[in-house]
């Protein structure tokens, strides 16, 4: 048996998430957002969470509902403020939630660094802007860069299209977004998929997330 584990319910998949965990949550807007897993996490009750995701919730569902339930201490994201981000906006204005705004590409690259064993990297994004505050700046070949550190997750909750029983994953269109990167950056990756197939069904050339980097799978 391989380390990927197929569980039949989202509740079983998220059962082990501890209070105080850092949870990477996939999705860009609604595309690729693992709604079943987030709903299960709300039922599960883990609190004092740090959430890393591109957005900070839309409307009253998904991440917004997790935030509304008071389970989140801090959000790292690139774009919290949206037309329908009133839950986050309210909590933030009341000082009930911490926010670290990270440029979208740095969010992805810092998670990639965590998954790739890179200790830190020099990135040209945000040089000379308020988001450079507190970061080490260095000039390399005449261009300025900021030193960026990895973002690791205890857990990643991501959506994918099809998994095989070994944990190979493929995605669908732009729902791929942060999923493959988060799967490498978390100690345990929990995946919500549309379908689980037998090993040998997926085209080995088209696998996007191979199993060594994801350790859980859920329907």
């Amino acid at each position: 048996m391989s380390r990927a584990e197929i569980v039949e319910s989202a509740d079983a998949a998220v059962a082990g998430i501890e209070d105080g965990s850092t949870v990477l949550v996939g999705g860009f807007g609604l595309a690729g957002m693992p709604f079943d897993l987030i709903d299960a996490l709300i039922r599960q009750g883990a609190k004092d969470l740090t959430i890393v995701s591109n957005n900070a919730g839309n409307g009253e569902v998904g991440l917004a509902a997790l935030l509304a339930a008071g389970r989140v201490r801090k959000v790292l994201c690139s774009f919290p403020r949206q037309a329908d981000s009133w839950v986050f906006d309210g909590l933030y204005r009341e000082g009930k939630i911490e926010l670290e705004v990270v440029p979208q590409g740095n969010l992805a690259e810092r998670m990639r660094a965590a998954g790739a064993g890179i200790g830190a990297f020099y990135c040209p994004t945000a040089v000379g802007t308020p988001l450079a505050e507190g970061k080490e700046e260095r000039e390399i070949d005449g261009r300025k860069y900021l030193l960026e550190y990895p973002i690791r997750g205890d857990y990643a909750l991501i959506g994918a299209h099809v998994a095989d029983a070994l944990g190979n994953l493929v995605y669908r269109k732009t729902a791929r977004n942060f999923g493959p990167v988060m799967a490498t950056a978390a100690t345990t990756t929990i995946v919500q998929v549309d379908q689980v197939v037998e090993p040998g069904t997926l085209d080995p050339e088209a696998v996007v997330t191979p199993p060594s980097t994801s350790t859980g799978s859920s329907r």
Partner: protein
Amino acid sequence: MTTTPSDQMRAEHRLSMDELAAVIACDIPAGAFVNLGIGQPTKIADHLPADSGVVLHTENGMLNMGPKAEGDAVDPDLTNAGKVPVTELPGAAYFHHADSFAMMRGGHLDVCVLGAYQVAFDGDLANWHTGEPNAIPAVGGAMDLAIGAKDVYVMMTLFTRSGEPKLVPQCTYPLTGVGCVSRVYTDCGVFDVGPDGVRIRETYGVSAPELAERLGITLS
């Protein structure tokens, strides 16, 4: 498409954002790899000639993005950076977020067009934060795009609703990127900006000297 490039070049009126989109579309080289920012720049896609061969990149992981999806073509798994459902063109490719932004930062996009609050004469860009104390900051991919594409164009109205210029000697809003913009397209005219300062390329509905005076630009 309501106007042709030659119409616009002669425009004796301020351009509408649609007309401005058509102007920008004509300036994008055939075959270029292009990212169009959220908001007004999205309109540029509607004005690209059918045979332009321009390849659109969307930061959420796709090349060869097609037009907005309508009706049955709407697929929640296929959106642009503004979360609007879009379509795919033949030759499309999907990739994850780290690869998508690597493509940007690595200089693999020829042009990106962004909206802005302010652009400085030297090319500094402010388009992510109004600087108001109770505003919630949200940067998205703006800083990555600003430093990534080979050419960064800005598309904006030249003046705020209260009449303040948005093309300025120095940005007063928090910066998105330093010296990153090369050209500014506005309803009143087109400008080159950068290390050598600002230069008026063309004007719409206003003379160059008049515009220069209003913006504090020295005509060379």
